[in-house]
């Protein structure tokens, strides 16, 4: 059996890129590549002293499986988290760059993406799915 690929989204609450990254990650894991991906919880990577709280599983998963990070902004918090605790990310997708490439699709707000925002999330999800396929055939 082939191994699963981890998807970890920045999930930041304070910006539209965080909402888009979260929506796109869910679309990939629930619909587009549900059989070969698994969603990882970003805060679990980073939580200080998680070992004390029993939350080491996410970090271990990313050590042993290719993991794609989805970044809402240039801070790249997910990538930094994965690299700090698990090793190099297999790929990184920058949502802000995809937003720039689609100026016709402006999300409504960080709280509610609206119709255009969801279309953009679908586009981001397709890009992630293609990356999953590339990684899946190479492992």
């Amino acid at each position, binding site marked *: 059996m082939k191994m699963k690929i981890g998807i970890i989204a920045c999930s930041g609450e304070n910006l539209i890129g965080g909402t888009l990254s*979260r929506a796109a990650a869910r679309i990939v894991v629930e619909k587009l590549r549900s059989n070969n991906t698994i969603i990882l*919880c*970003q*805060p679990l990577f980073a*939580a200080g002293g998680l070992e004390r*709280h029993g939350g080491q599983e996410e970090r271990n998963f990313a050590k042993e499986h290719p993991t794609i990070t989805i970044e809402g902004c240039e801070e790249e918090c997910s990538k*930094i988290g994965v690299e700090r605790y698990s090793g190099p990310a297999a790929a990184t997708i920058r949502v802000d760059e995809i937003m720039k490439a689609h100026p016709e699709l402006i999300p409504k707000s960080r709280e509610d993406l609206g119709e255009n925002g969801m279309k953009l999330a679908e586009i981001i999800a397709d890009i992630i799915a293609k990356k999953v396929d590339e990684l899946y055939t190479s492992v």
Partner: protein
Amino acid sequence: MSKKKVYIIPCSGIGKVFGSIGRETAYIVANELAKGKAELECLPLIVKGKKEVIKALKENKIIAIDGCPLMCSYNNIMEKIGKVDAKFMTTDIVKENRELKPEPSIIPVGENTKELSRKLAEQVVKKVDELLEEKKEAT
């Protein structure tokens, strides 16, 4: 001197609906019920240790909202800021309102999830006011 405020930091979890309740709650508090008194910040940025974010949180009050017993928001903030002024668990509001079973859907969230979030937001906003009152008395 700038007006003091309360930062609302939800856990950012995207694996289960309990994280979504935290996020929806934070949006209702910051955008509506305590607009101008409460603000959001990205948990991943706190964990990353972005200087201006850390400084702002140290100078103001903080409420953590968590969706599971790992308490990523609370633990991450304690690790990076060294204090949390109040904390909430979204699972508590679910237990208090057993007739409102949250729908499993994360994007979009369901009606029961929205109603639970509003109920929790009403509790959080009371705490926001208490904390700001304490802050006034202390200065």
